[in-house]
């Protein structure tokens, strides 16, 4: 396989607070290759967003980040702040959940798109504007020559997210990072955006890191999936393997918690309790207090290792969770 575009090794993010240290991200490894989509899945507090923010040098103040991050083979973590900012601006595009927070309300969308081209690609104002029109057309905004002079509030939610994607693509980045990019959108609009990104990825060969809580979206777009819980990776694998044969009790439970189309079960399977706060992580396996299986005596006080259960399919567990056993225990 080709060199990864973005690779994380042992990424750990901690926050010191009066009540002790919070490990928000704990030893995360993953890599994304050109043209591929890596989905990072998790609930609130799982550390899925913090992983990517910290890896790209966007961690909030007070965060202590350790581990290695390589962008196109270069070690991002070893760079000076200015170099890292430049590398990030040049090679990574970001799309966040709420397009309104990524857009400046008092600037035309054209200016916002072209500014990135001018700054990182050294284009002139005229070239930047031309490029902006081109990009707005690329992301499917009708009559981009006119819309380029509009302000963000003149666009609908879905169109705004397209503008943000155009901004993210302005520098022809090697990686596109989408953090819950379709969560705030309606399903029909979400379908449009997903289709758009898939099409762009095919044409431009961009690697995509898609952070989401929506397993349906993941199933549709991902090549590989990383499932996070309590700041750690608890399972990762190829999308087909992971959905066909989820190995961690948490992954299994997540998949079972959604109502299945066409199946009107009387009761949904659920996981008791709520996801833990990073400050309140239990010792041992982070999922242990909510785990319906608890298949090993060590779960309570020892963190299970990531073990390979099939080629390229890893799970953080002392035992190989067997769905049949799981069903039986919960009955």
């Amino acid at each position, binding site marked *: 396989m080709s060199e990864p575009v973005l690779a994380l090794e042992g990424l750990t993010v901690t926050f010191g607070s009066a009540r002790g240290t919070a490990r928000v991200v704990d030893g995360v490894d993953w890599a994304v290759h050109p043209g591929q989509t890596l989905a990072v899945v998790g*609930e*609130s507090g799982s550390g899925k967003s913090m992983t990517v923010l910290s890896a790209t040098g966007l961690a909030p103040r007070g965060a202590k980040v350790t581990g290695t991050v390589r962008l196109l083979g270069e070690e991002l973590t070893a760079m000076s702040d200015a170099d890292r900012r430049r590398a990030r601006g040049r090679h990574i595009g970001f799309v966040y959940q709420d397009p309104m927070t990524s857009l400046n309300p008092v600037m035309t969308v054209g200016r916002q798109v072209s500014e990135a081209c001018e700054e990182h690609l050294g284009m002139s104002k005229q070239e930047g504007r031309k490029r902006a029109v081109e990009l707005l057309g690329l992301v499917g905004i009708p009559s981009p020559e006119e819309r380029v002079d509009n302000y963000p509030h003149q666009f*609908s*939610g*879905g*169109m705004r997210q397209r503008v943000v994607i155009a901004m993210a693509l302005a520098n022809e980045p090697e990686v596109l990072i989408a953090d819950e990019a379709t969560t705030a959108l*309606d*399903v*029909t*609009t*979400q*379908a*449009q955006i*997903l*289709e758009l990104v898939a099409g762009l990825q095919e044409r431009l060969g961009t690697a995509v890191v898609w952070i989401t*809580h*929506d*397993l*349906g*979206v*993941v*199933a*549709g777009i*991902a090549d590989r999936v990383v499932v996070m819980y309590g700041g750690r990776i608890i399972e990762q694998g190829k*999308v*087909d393997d992971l*959905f*066909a044969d989820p190995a961690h009790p948490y992954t299994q*439970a*997540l*998949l079972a*918690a*959604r*109502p*299945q*189309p*066409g199946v*009107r*079960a*009387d*009761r*949904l*399977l*659920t*996981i*008791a309790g*709520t*996801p833990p706060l990073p400050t309140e992580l239990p010792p041992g396996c982070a999922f242990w207090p*909510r785990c319906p299986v608890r298949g090993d005596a060590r779960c309570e006080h020892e963190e299970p290792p990531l073990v390979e259960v099939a080629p390229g399919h890893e799970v953080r567990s002392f035992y190989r969770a067997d769905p049949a056993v799981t069903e039986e225990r919960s009955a």
Partner: protein
Amino acid sequence: MTTTGSTESTATDVVARVTDLRVHFPVGRGSVVHAVDGVSLDVRRGETLGLVGESGSGKSTTGLALLRLVHVTSGTVEVAGQDVTTWSRRQVKPLRRRVAMVFQDPSASLDPRLTIGASIAEPLAVHGLRGSKAERRERVGELLDLVGLRPDMADRHPHEMSGGQRQRVGIARALAGEPDLLVLDEPIASLDLSVQAQIMNLLRRLQEELGLTYLFISHDLAAVEHMSDRVAVMYLGRIVETGTPEQIYRNPAHPYTAALLSAVPTADPARERERRRITLHGDIPSPVDPPSGCRFRTRCPAARPDCAEKDPDLYQVEEGHRAACLYKVEAVREMRAGADRATG
């Protein structure tokens, strides 16, 4: 406008009925938002009616109208056989005991300054249901237990609880006045996935135990299918299709429903790959100036010229299944064929 319910439903088993409801909001400079624009539906005792639609469809406003929480422009709202559309402020008070509401974001819908016990006791105090403080406290304990919380949590404040626990409190408050109908406005939308299932199970259990009637408003099609006995699909202030979940999800008769269903991703990579998606173009038009004729025609892949002229009524597809499309099932069939051509 025809009502969505089958004609044999009598007054007694209908808890709430809305007839040709219109709710228009002025938004300055003479513009008017047609939030709800001719909706008729009835909610029958003991059932869950799912109201599904995207943002701007008017589904939440329809729910608010049942409690008279929005100004009704025209049409009627009936609750327990009584026309409440023009009731005075004083008369509305007992209505709000009969119909209670659960809101989307439980951290916003609970007063941060009050203990959750005080929040739950509010309907009791407002309607003078349990005279003494001690009686009310006892009832709060019962309600907490009913929704799966420990009665001693009554003294906590909302910020000391998780999102799921807070939503349980919201449900307990709604149940306090023993309402006939619960309007659940996106009750699971702001919760974590693993907690959503807990809340759906809780709502199901409460319905069985207490014989409750629900209007379940959601944009989440899978959740609506799971929860509802009947479903109404809304688009731009109108109901475009109504029927049982089986009818709607297996055999959608309105192009919008079909497109909506085809847009929902499922957690199955193999199915996702071979999915024939009917991609709608453009966005939902502004409710300030809805399209003439059929409201969906501007995005409908099967639209024909006369869709702009005639505003389609709901026609009967089969018993209990109605849809508002001039070209009936033909339109959906045509769309599907189009999607097949595109993928094949």
